[in-house]
């Protein structure tokens, strides 16, 4: 419509007020189903709901930051492990996503026969619902009945008890996660690469640059905004990616692969008759704080704010 940027506030209100009407439903939804639950969770984390004995289900008390204090100072607490694991899970996954994605995109970015076929086939993991495929991956990683060990034994490698040791458990999780996400990253990077003008590479060739040099000096700089963007999105997404850990390792062995969100779910819904809502809430709050902190740091440091707001 007309450019109203330079009009007075009153004028813009008079003309554009229907926008507010259109936004009422969404605002209500976001406040009631996003903002309020978060506030409520924070509140619960400051009580003894579920952790103060049987009475605390009906009449819980406000106890301030006690949960947090015990969560970080007690020897038996797992909070530090949760932090460590969450970062390993998110950081390791994103690193792999970027490497595999960039690698495959580079390979695909040539003139090859069957490029579309390759691309379509590679997109298939991403097309299938994650919940289903992760469930199947769980089965595949099983020690005795899993097909991965079955294949290994058929080529003469001893079967690995994947989910029994932390290192192999992480390996299984990372492989699964890469399988889930690499198509997305490949396609995104490929699309960005294809937008790079071919003349830049040609000029570099004439100047004597080799493939590696071209990649480092032309491709990467062009991709930098995309890498940062999808990298950040990927990190935040993985940080709270529930199903792989929930379905495959359940946080185990022990809590070596447990992250905030799975632990929170467990405390709230998997402790049978006596759920620990307050600690579950605490883990949620910690999770949330980390997510927010990371987001703001990255946005602030890399000036991600796009001005697509006219």
């Amino acid at each position, binding site marked *: 419509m007309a450019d109203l940027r330079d009009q007075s506030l009153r004028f813009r209100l008079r003309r554009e007020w229907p926008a507010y009407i259109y936004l009422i439903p969404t605002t209500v939804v976001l406040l009631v*189903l996003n903002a309020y639950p978060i506030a*409520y969770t924070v509140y619960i984390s400051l009580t003894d709901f579920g952790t103060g004995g049987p009475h605390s289900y009906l009449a819980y008390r406000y106890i301030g930051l006690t949960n947090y204090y015990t969560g970080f100072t007690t020897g038996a607490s797992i909070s530090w492990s949760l932090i460590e694991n969450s970062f390993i899970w998110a950081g390791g996954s994103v690193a792999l996503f970027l490497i595999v994605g960039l690698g495959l995109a580079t390979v695909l970015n040539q003139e090859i026969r069957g490029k579309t076929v390759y691309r379509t086939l590679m997109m298939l993991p991403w097309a299938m619902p994650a919940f*289903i495929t992760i469930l199947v991956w769980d089965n595949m990683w099983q020690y005795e009945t899993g097909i991965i060990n079955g294949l290994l034994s058929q080529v003469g490698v001893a079967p690995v008890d994947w989910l029994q040791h932390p290192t192999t458990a992480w390996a299984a999780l990372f492989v699964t996660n890469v399988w889930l996400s690499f198509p997305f990253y490949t396609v995104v990077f490929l699309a960005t690469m294809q937008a790079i003008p071919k003349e830049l590479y040609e000029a570099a060739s004439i100047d004597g640059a080799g493939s590696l040099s071209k990649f480092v000096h032309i491709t990467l700089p062009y991709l930098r905004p995309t890498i940062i963007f999808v990298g950040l999105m990927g990190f935040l997404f993985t940080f*709270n990616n*529930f199903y792989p850990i929930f379905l495959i390792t359940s946080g185990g062995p022990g809590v070596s692969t447990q992250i905030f969100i799975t632990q929170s779910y467990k405390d709230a819904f998997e402790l049978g008759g006596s759920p620990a809502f307050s600690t579950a809430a605490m883990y949620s709050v910690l999770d949330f704080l980390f997510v927010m902190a990371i987001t703001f740091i990255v946005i602030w440091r890399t000036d991600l704010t796009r001005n697509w*707001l006219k």
Partner: protein
Amino acid sequence: MRIAKRVATHVILIAACLFALFPIYFIIITSFSTLPIASITAHVLVPKPSQLTLASYHAILYDQSPSFASLLENSLIFAGSAAAIGLGLAAFTGFALSKFQFPGRRTFVYFILIISLFPGFIMILPFYLMFAKIGLIDTYIGLIIPYSAGAVVFSGILVKNYMDSIPDDIEEAALMDGLGRTEAFFRVLLPLCLPILGLAAFLAFIGPYTDYALANVFLTADPTKWTLALGLYNIANTDTGQQNYGLVTAFAMLMSLPIVAFYMAFQRYIIGGLTLGAVRG
């Protein structure tokens, strides 16, 4: 050297495709297989025709309780309703953000972007507590409400971006032709947004359709309301499922079919929509 590079390229790509397709192949083959899966030596990659059967599918469709039909119906109710509501919300939000320059627009966008960063799973606990308090656990409405909120911001931004690319003068032409802004929205702008609305509907549908975590918490007591995701998890974790993984994979195939079909039909839009956002970033 060139040939080596070409060969290496295809080798890598083929390897990537094998990696991508193997689990899917596994699912498909197992769902049609008669072999008991519980023993390692029974792992055969290319089964002989005599080892193929539809028994698993038959069992899933007819011999389950709650029945597959019931699970499917519930999943469609939940996901479909959530998609319809989410679509409406996304359309209104996108329109307001794209075609109006109201005071506070910038603040509002920051507000919803920040809110969209809240991890969805974190909401499960407060939702449960909130909805339990007002007695909406184990009801249809109780679960549809949180489901509807899932993709609102993302879909809203998608619609906004798409509408940004519709020239302003089409809306102006509609105004000159005698429509008010609201009518112009419904009769001119929305029909022009059908591709992105289709995508938004898909995104709003797929989340609830494949959700286990929230459904598990909300639909505890009443099996008649259980969704496909709950059914699949159950069967994967019972003995029968683990003895005969064919059942589980057959279930998985049936459950995935609508999604994969939809995706294949619209993959150009989906990839296009995603890469557009990413490239601009």
